[in-house]
């Protein structure tokens, strides 16, 4: 289904660490990224897409718009989603990931803000984050048309005229013709993309040096 990118503002990552950042030896293993949508009304979230960079586990919390006067609360919609099966090795470290509405724990109907909590327990990596973050909402549905009344509520048909002898049933013929038409359309639409196999340019293959670009 179609989707539309929602302009979002990704705030800088905040590291969660116990103790003083300057003096402690280790690197933070938890980062938090806040994503706000300043210019957009509360929308229904369809898909979150990003490129991973050495994040092992992802938790997402969402704050939704509520109609009543109660302040919007943070709810966890994705818990500890595993991006790297082995946090110490490169598997999954730089993959593109898409997360969809149906994978979330809660309804994503009126999203106000998102909070991504990234975890990387392995001390081997110097840094970790997610890049190229994009949020999508549902694209516009095809415009609903009002059908003329006679299409949606057909008049009960009159008694069909008796078939002439020897002619095939018209409904069967029409379904077969439709099938054949569909096949011919498929053949017409198909085209191949094979190479021809020539490596020279108009019969000439005089080369001097290899190019570095």
């Amino acid at each position, binding site marked *: 289904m179609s989707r539309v990118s929602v302009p979002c503002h990704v705030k800088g990552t905040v590291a969660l660490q116990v103790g003083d950042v300057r003096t402690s030896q280790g690197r933070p293993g938890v980062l938090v990224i806040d994503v706000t949508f300043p210019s957009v009304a509360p929308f229904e979230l369809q898909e979150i*897409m990003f*490129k991973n*960079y*050495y994040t092992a586990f992802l938790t997402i919390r969402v704050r939704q718009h509520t109609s009543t006067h109660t302040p919007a609360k943070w709810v966890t919609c994705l818990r500890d989603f595993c991006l790297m*099966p*082995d946090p*110490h*090795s*490169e*598997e999954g*470290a*730089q*993959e*593109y*990931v*898409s997360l*969809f509405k*149906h994978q979330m724990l809660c309804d994503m109907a009126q999203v106000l803000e998102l909070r991504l909590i990234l975890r990387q327990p392995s*001390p*081997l*990596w*110097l*840094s*970790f984050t997610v890049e*190229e973050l994009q949020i999508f909402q549902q694209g516009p549905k095809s415009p609903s048309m009002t059908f003329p009344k006679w299409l949606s509520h057909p008049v009960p048909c009159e008694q069909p005229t008796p078939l002439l002898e020897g002619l095939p049933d018209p409904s*069967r013929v029409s379904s*077969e013709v439709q*099938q*054949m038409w569909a*096949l011919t359309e498929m053949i017409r639409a*198909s*085209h*191949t*993309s*094979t*190479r021809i*196999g*020539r*490596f*020279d*340019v108009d019969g*000439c*293959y*005089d*080369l*001097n*040096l*290899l*190019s*570095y*670009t």
Partner: protein
Amino acid sequence: MLQEESDLSLIIAQIVQKLKGSNLYAQLERQAWASLQRPEIKLESLKEDIKEFFKISGWEKKLQNAVYSELSVFPLPSHPAAPPEHLKEPLVYMRKAQGSWEKRILKSLNSMCTELSIPLARKRPVGEQKELLNKWNEMGTDEPDLSLFRPVYAPKDFLEVLINLRNPNYENGDSLSFRTHLGLIQVPLKVKDIPELKEFFVELGLTTGQLGIDDSTQVPPELFENEHVRIGQKVLTEQDSAAAQQYIRQGSPTALRAELWALILNISSHPEDILYYEQLKTNVIQHDLLVDSLIYKDVKLTASNDDYYFVFEDYLYQVLLCFSRDTSVLSHFAYNSASPPKSYIRGKLGLEEYAVFYPPNGVIPFHGFSMYVAPLCFLYHEPSKLYQIFREMYVRFFFRLHSISSHPSGIVSLCLLFETLLQTYLPQLFYHLREIGAQPLRISFKWMVRAFSGYLATDQLLLLWDRILGYNSLEILAVLAAAVFAFRAVNLMEVTSLAAAEAVLADLSTLKVMPLLQIFLFATVT
């Protein structure tokens, strides 16, 4: 789930698109047209009747084999937002490393060109063309002066590049800590450990019959060999690629091997394929490439000096020279981290209409490249079939042995797998070799890069390559390398230098591959 359905339809669409340009598609179309004459095909149920006809006549099986072949070769479609470089190699630093390595190769080739004042490519004059055509079947008798040519690179140069491979986001401290790898490879790729390897190579277990073990003279053939040969013949009559791949994991009988490999690689000899090979031969005759001299030199240095393979020298030229002209090989660069070198027609530098790939297949041979072809000469004697088998083996497996990538069958992963296995299961040996300055990978690298060709006896090598085809993976090379070290561990513990260690491991021609693998994987007490 929605996601899996859309993934499946994407895979199906990709495979259909790929198969549309193939020979099989045209043949199926022709067969479908011809079948319209048959009485059982009725117009009302055209689609179903033709499908039924294909099933009965064996064409559905051919289509199944083609689809299976595509699935084995091409990686699964990745995320729609992923750019094409991501499909070649997902890790950015490895792409960069491969790029700089390629630049070094190009510089080396260019400097050879300018030093020797030989063009990269030129059209042969008619007289020379006639001469070459006459000599086509005995190019080995030619003794051109190749003293000024040198191979573009050797495996040990490539090893140095791999040793210096670093992930910029990885803690590469100068001081030794738990983070440093004790071997030569310093990138943290995921490799299988022995429990995972046992599961992956389950058909090599102690309780399963193997060719290479259970067909030795002491074992009566009724126990395993006869039945295995019978099943092999059945697989060949059924012409089922997937079944053949499963069958060959226990080894292939010598008489059936050529056909089984052709079935697994989905190679069939049609007139079109022979015609294609003849076209490549014409291309060789018309244009002379610098790469040809590199191939000549490589064959003279390696295969011609080998006791088993020197008889096939002429075949090697016929295959490798045509291989360099084959533009269909360019399609494998979609999933290879390497990229084909580019050049411009003389005088048209920078004009994209005159940009070409050099060599036409994009692969620059290195020292030892001809050893990939040599063992195949024992199986196939018809040049066009030999050529097709080699090309398919190259675009499925061998290209991974000389390009930098994070793929589990890539050479970097194989090296890391070898070192990890040795370190985990033979720690004393590993420590001893490291202390005397003989890092084990320095010795085993050349074996793995050549897929053991030229190091093992030919029958053992073919048993090993059976398993590569059967498991669709090169990891068995790393396991065998570790198994060889385990086998000669006692002698290796007594050496005191790299040269002595090399001497202990210099001759592998007496080794039996399958018992070594079985013992290392399934019978070593850990």
